[in-house]
């Protein structure tokens, strides 16, 4: 059965790896990203890999007032969506966010508010159709604020809390809401980091995401060992945690 799948932030490494697998399963895709040139390349790649139909739209998701038109466009192409994956975002420079309130708010806007806006529009459609999966890439960084990236962490924390509520609301409508919390992933977003044993490849994360969607999971830590790491991090008492250099 071909599925209609919307992928927002399609040029991100994890989204690209995920949509390739969906393309090879001959599904119908709708791809959204900011860079039009890259988007066209990825759409053509998806078609050659076997996607049945590929539609796309280039837009800057930071412009929240474009979201309504975007979602209408998607539903004009596909009257029913089976899966949506929201994968766009940026990894801000924490120091720059501390120095400039405008940068901090911009990062909150793209990493949290834009996702909330899209989810609000999509949730109503999914609630009405009474089926489907909403999957959103949040981050382990949202589990606890740390001095090294709490602006990003706060944005992701907001997304995760929003997803919890949405999951609760859509439970009766038979809609899956999946909160994806990747750890360190080797992508262009993290190109400047030194890579160690905890780092995962986007292809591996993509496989985990598809498996989690297929098995109706609520939360996915990927790779799996991040569940354990974050369990410890979440449970360190605050009077100790605040002294740590994390």
């Amino acid at each position, binding site marked *: 059965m071909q599925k209609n799948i919307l992928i927002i932030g399609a040029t991100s*490494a994890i989204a690209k790896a995920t949509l390739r697998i969906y393309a*090879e399963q001959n599904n119908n895709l709708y791809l959204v990203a900011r860079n039009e*040139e*890259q988007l066209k*390349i*990825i759409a*053509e*790649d998806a078609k*050659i*890999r*076997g996607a049945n139909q590929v539609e796309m739209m280039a837009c800057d998701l930071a412009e929240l007032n474009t979201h309504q038109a975007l979602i209408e466009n998607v539903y004009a192409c596909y009257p029913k969506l089976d899966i949506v994956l929201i994968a766009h975002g940026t990894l801000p420079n924490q120091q720059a966010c501390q120095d400039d309130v405008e940068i901090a708010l911009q990062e909150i806007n793209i990493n949290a508010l834009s996702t909330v806006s899209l989810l609000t529009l999509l949730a109503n459609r999914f609630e009405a159709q009474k089926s489907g999966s909403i999957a959103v890439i949040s981050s382990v960084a949202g589990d606890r604020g740390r001095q090294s990236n709490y602006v990003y962490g706060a944005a992701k924390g907001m997304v995760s809390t929003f997803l919890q509520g949405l999951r609760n609301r859509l439970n009766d409508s038979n809609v899956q809401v999946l909160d994806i919390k990747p750890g360190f992933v080797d992508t*262009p977003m993290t*190109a400047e980091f030194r890579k160690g044993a905890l780092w995962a490849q986007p292809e591996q994360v993509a496989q985990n995401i598809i498996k989690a969607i297929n098995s109706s999971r609520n939360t996915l830590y990927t790779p799996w060992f991040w569940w354990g790491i974050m369990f410890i991090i979440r449970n360190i008492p605050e009077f100790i945690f605040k002294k740590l250099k994390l």
Partner: protein
Amino acid sequence: MKLTGWGRYPTIDSQSVFPNQPGLVKSLMHSTEHKHEHLTQIARGLGRSYGDSSLADHSINLSKLDNFISFNENTGELTCSAGLSFSEILRVFIPKGWFLPVTPGTQFITVGGAIASDVHGKNHHIDGSFSEHVSKITLCLASGDAVECSATLNTPLFHATCGGMGLTGIILQATFKLKRIETAFIDETTFKTTNLSETLEKFEQHDAATYSVAWIDCLATGKNLGRSLLMLGEHALSESNSNQNTLHVAPHSKLNMPLDLPGFTLNSLSVKAFNVLYYGKVRQQESQRNVHYAPFFYPLDSIQNWNRMYGKKGFVQYQFVIPKSAGLVGLTEILTEIAHSKRGSFLAVLKVFGKGNDNYLSFPEEGYTLALDFKLDSTLFAFLNRLDDIVLNYGGKLYLTKDARMSEKMFKQSYPLWEQFQEVRQQYDAHKAFNSLQSKRLGL
């Protein structure tokens, strides 16, 4: 970060970048235009060249530039980014009934690497090398400008880039033709030969076979010298195959060599035992079977990290070609030298090449080519220098993709077009921007 080639010798400390868009490669070139002259940079893919040809202070890794760009279902013409791997092409296109026009003995290489090495396969005598199926390349020059080149457009640049070991620029994308297959299987015929002249005779007799290659027992001496298993292959047609799903892709192997074998496990006795058993495994003089493409083309891909078999110090692959005119006499002399040294290699592969091409540094030319692995030890290079003299004496040369130690003198004598190659590089300022440990060693 420490980097090595597949043979794990030599090692270099290198900074790697992984551009995932052509635009990033171009801007990288702009930003590195005024780099210190003594620093080197070279493109790299999946790191399967054996020696030092992808090693430099700065490594531009193209493996994330991996998109399919266009495909013509009528002609089989595929355009893709340079970092796409052969294994990915096979995974996507075998189910659609297409196969690579030419493939080397591993599928874990990139399209860019295949062009830079001008790789050859078991069908060289019929189909030539990979570049001969490439109709167009987009190359990022030292200036950061991308140019197209082909056999008719920027011709010298095309012939310098195919087989040019990444020394002319960074290949961004390429167009080449896939070939139609009906099934993913190969009808294989194996001949067991008792000596070298019989092996060569069998090659001659079966020169119409699409694929041919011989595994040769390189430790056999005397009247057994050159005894081989000669394997021929044809793409199996659908009616000859009873399997229901005939266009399926092989899953990636789960077998892995998890650690380096201690150096002493590989010695002349164990290699001899392996060779005797391998040769003895085939009983009949002629046998036939229907095999999946993966074990036929990529027997070593079935063990991940097989290069660890040669221990921590690594190994050197030695692949030479000698012209047909040197014939039996030349091969006999070289095989005798190898057998006497007792440095046998697990897989010694003999192949008859068809005609060469116009690429300045391309390896294949009409003649016999033999590939061997030798474990690295303190006396190996002196021995290989002796082999070099014999190869040179017969008018032969070594494969740059597998080389880690050839002298500048040997290179310049055996690759007579190196000066034209260098002129093209200078014309595009490539000699200032692209260099590897190998190019420095070879005086390019």
